């Protein structure tokens, strides 16, 4: 069977790489073979960070440089990422999942379903509780909306419960989850959603 391709998008600094680092522990615990593709503007920063974390063999982390607006390589012309994913799949025939992190972008960024099978959009509490109300295509169209950094809510004057309710209403009941990627709160639940919806293990 092909490896599931899972997209992770969202604004700059919302915690996409931190979420991947957390998820890698879950993949390890369950012995599910995984690889990661990071997208940065003109560096390999995120890939280097994941390699350094020691959570995944170094050759299972690949960097794609977008060169321009990050959404261009996950939506308009995702061929760089598709080719990176194809190469990973032929190099590691046991792969069950490939996590593809988009470079930090704006609320309009969405993944092409030619590139990924399923994608999540990570926003964070510190970005403001009005973000879900702004009906950005990323927030509305993703398969799962992740509201990260819930630990910061008291410091930025955000009522998390209200923010979650507004997000669910903007998404007409489609899935929304909250997390703290520093401590791992919410990550197990998120992992079981991924397992159930696209990994099929």
């Amino acid at each position, binding site marked *: 069977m*092909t490896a599931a391709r899972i997209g992770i998008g969202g604004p700059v600094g919302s915690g996409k790489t931190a979420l991947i680092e957390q998820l890698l522990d879950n993949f390890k615990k369950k012995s599910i073979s995984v690889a990661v593709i990071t997208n940065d503007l003109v560096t390999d920063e995120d890939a280097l960070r994941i390699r350094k974390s020691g959570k995944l063999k170094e050759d299972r982390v690949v960097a794609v440089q977008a060169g321009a607006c990050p959404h261009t390589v996950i939506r308009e012309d995702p061929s760089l990422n598709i080719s990176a994913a194809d190469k990973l799949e032929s190099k590691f025939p046991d792969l069950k999942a490939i996590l593809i992190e988009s470079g930090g972008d704006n609320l309009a960024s969405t993944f092409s379903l*030619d590139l990924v099978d399923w994608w999540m959009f990570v926003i964070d509490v510190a970005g403001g509780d009005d973000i879900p109300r702004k009906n950005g295509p990323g927030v509305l169209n993703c398969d799962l909306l992740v509201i990260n950094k819930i630990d910061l809510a008291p410091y930025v004057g955000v009522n998390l419960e209200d923010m979650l309710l507004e997000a669910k209403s903007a998404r007409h009941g489609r899935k929304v989850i909250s997390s703290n990627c520093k401590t791992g709160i919410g990550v197990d639940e998120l992992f079981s959603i991924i397992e159930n919806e*696209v990994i*099929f293990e």
Partner: protein
Amino acid sequence: MIFEKILGNENDESFSEKLHHLSHKSLVDYIEIKPEDSFRRRMRMVSINGREYKLAIPRSQKIENGSILWLSEDFAVVIRILNGPKIRVTPKNITSAVRLGYHCGNLHWKTNFIQGGIDIILSGESQNYFDRLKTLEEFADFEVEYLENDN
């Protein structure tokens, strides 16, 4: 049950007779897919008989209306792509037509070109599309018509 490849289409001559036979005995299970999900290669699906299936087809394949996922002597599984609602936009002149095409492209809308206009394939709320078309009214002259799905 996981389907890992598309075997063919119900319109292929090599399959049509066999499928016809099975469908007379109600031995064909149909899976209805929303238009926006027809681009997926991997997903969970529920058939009209309530059976749960999984799809994990190669990147080189794409489901279409009539795609056959299973075919044996006594059972078949076939895809039905639903016709979702559409917004038909008819520009009144060439300048408006160019503006309109550019606008739809900028917004990454899925469209079908038809004689004299564009059909916009909706995903999510239709109001979002009407709102965006409204912002174009100042620059282009066009008619907008909402078409219910015709399944």
